[in-house]
């Protein structure tokens, strides 16, 4: 029983992180048809900026929005100066189907090595604003801390804000329109390029929040968030890669399967599980749970 509760609680907290990372990937994919493999690097650099703020001000609540802002800015720069010109330049030949993926790998490499030059590869301690020790109920200590509660509640707040923004504001409507039918939206007066940049910026902010949430209690290094890219991608694919709700559900499913296998089977499986889950979902339901009728040849 204790095992069951522990597994569910850890799964919930991990799932929230994966869900937000998946959302960051989904936001970019549905607006520009790019899976942004640099997302892990962008989140990492933003988290370093949050770390700089937190070591100077000793205030986590300033660091969180500062990192989100930095993440949004970085993403907007990458979209404006690299991805947008690239879409026009590499539109033919053998490179065309994979150009954006290759460019995002290049960005990831630059961010990795750049961050390692600025902040060194040594692990940095990111202090948590709340306790990271397990909560004690009766005589048993559960592997679930105030930090996990912070993670889950922040993710819920961020995701509901996004949902409200997309469903209830006119800018959100333009974003959805530009993602769905760029040419027609352009005719209808939507500034598609600008709206796409906003989509990237939102995604960058979401990734930065992931980094600042998950790093306290752990260590920060130029490579520490890379694995989240894989988890986030798997979660996004479970949900169909285009749907924010799907990202949330996908994150939860992946978080639960990870925590249950590591508690009931073996903790050595953490790197294998996402791969197996991904293969299963690709074989059984390749369009994802929330995937629409469109083909996967994007």
């Amino acid at each position, binding site marked *: 029983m204790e095992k069951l509760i522990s597994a569910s609680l850890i799964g919930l907290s991990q799932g929230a992180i994966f869900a937000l990372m998946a959302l960051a990937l989904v936001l970019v*994919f549905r607006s520009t048809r*790019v*899976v942004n*493999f640099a997302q892990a690097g962008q989140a990492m650099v933003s988290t370093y900026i949050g770390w700089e703020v937190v070591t100077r001000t000793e205030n986590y609540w300033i660091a969180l929005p500062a990192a989100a802002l930095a993440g949004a800015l970085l993403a907007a720069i990458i979209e404006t100066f*690299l991805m947008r*010109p*690239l879409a026009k*330049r*590499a539109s*033919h*030949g*053998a*490179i*065309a*189907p*994979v*150009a954006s*993926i*290759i*460019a995002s*790998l*290049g*960005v*990831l*490499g*630059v961010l*990795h*090595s*750049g961050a*390692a*030059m600025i902040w*060194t*590869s040594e692990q940095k301690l990111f202090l948590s604003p709340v306790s990271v020790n397990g909560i004690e109920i009766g005589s048993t200590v559960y592997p679930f801390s105030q930090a996990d509660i912070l993670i889950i509640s922040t993710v819920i707040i961020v995701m509901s804000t996004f949902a409200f923004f997309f469903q209830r504001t006119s800018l959100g409507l333009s974003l959805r329109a530009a993602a769905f039918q760029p040419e027609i939206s352009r005719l209808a007066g939507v500034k598609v390029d600008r709206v796409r940049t906003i989509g990237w910026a939102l995604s960058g902010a979401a990734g930065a929040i992931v980094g600042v949430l998950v790093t306290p209690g752990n260590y920060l290094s130029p490579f520490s968030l*890379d*694995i989240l*890219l*894989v988890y986030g*991608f*798997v979660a996004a*694919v479970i949900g169909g*890669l285009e749907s924010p709700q799907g990202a949330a559900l996908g994150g939860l499913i992946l978080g639960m399967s990870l925590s249950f296998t590591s508690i009931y089977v073996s903790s*050595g*499986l*953490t*790197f*294998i599980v*996402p*791969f197996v889950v*991904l*293969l299963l979902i*690709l*074989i059984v339901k*390749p369009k994802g749970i929330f995937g629409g009728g469109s083909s*996967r*040849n*994007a």
Partner: protein
Amino acid sequence: MEGVLEMHSTHRRRLILFIVVGAVLFYFSSRVGILRLYQGSTVSMYVIAIGSIILLTGYSGQISLGNGAFMAIGAYVAVLSQLYLDLPFVLTFFVAVIGAALAGLILGIAAARLTGPYLAGATLALAVALPSLANLFPVLGGEQGLGYDSGNAPTLFGEVARFKWLFWISSFTALITCLILQNILKSRYGRIWKSIRSNSVAAELTGIHASKSKVLAFMLSAGIAGLAGAVLTMSLGTVSPSAFPLSLSFALITGAVIAGISSLLPGSLVGAVVLVGMSQLVGTLTTRFEIGDVLAQNLKELIVSALLILAVVFTPNGPGEKIREMRDHRKHHSHGGHR
């Protein structure tokens, strides 16, 4: 009949060219130092590995971020087959190809319907998952890895220095791989892959089985990557998970993109020389300008990644296409520039 004869003559010309290149390499191997021989082995390894990317991405239009993982599979298969089956090293190479190709087949079947980002993500997950297997199964030797004995040159050649012997094996393997790959890419299969890449619906209408052909490309690419892994292990004399980091897979893609993603020759050679030359350049810069450790350790990755971005933005399909474009442009102008 004429066509058949013509094809045979190109085959023969190609074969003669490769024999000449082999003879030249053999001649130079006695006239350069240990460092150059070692770099030559590394270039050969990269040529094979980049070739696997060019087949997959340049021809069949798929992308794999996990060819480093297939290299690891090949390397471990080679080492295990030597350790437990006592195979001679030539056979371990064959077994490595088969092992990695089988792994590629399994993943390829699962991913047959996927293109672009989905395959990229699946192979990325593989590249991340695979090294941790080495710690899960004791037979794989954990973090320390396992040793590999590349043996000595046959006595026929007299006393051959270790690095020269390693260079012979790896460059010979690279030459044969290029010859075979070149023939495959110029064959019916190469044209089938290209047709699927440019328009899979049209290709299927002409009777091509698109997903089968894609799986075949994926399997071949994995097998060739496995061979590169075996060559790497042979020249290192050991195999361990740390030899196959994610950055290796990324470096291979950089090497393949720099000289044009669908140019096997000279593309893969140029890419390989750039990757190896970069290491030396950074080493020289570091000692000459006394760059700090932190900068020096990351300079190579920074340059390689920046190069990748620049290449994909400015010469997306390689410098060859750019030059052709510029020539056409000039011709157009000299003809009066009307229209």
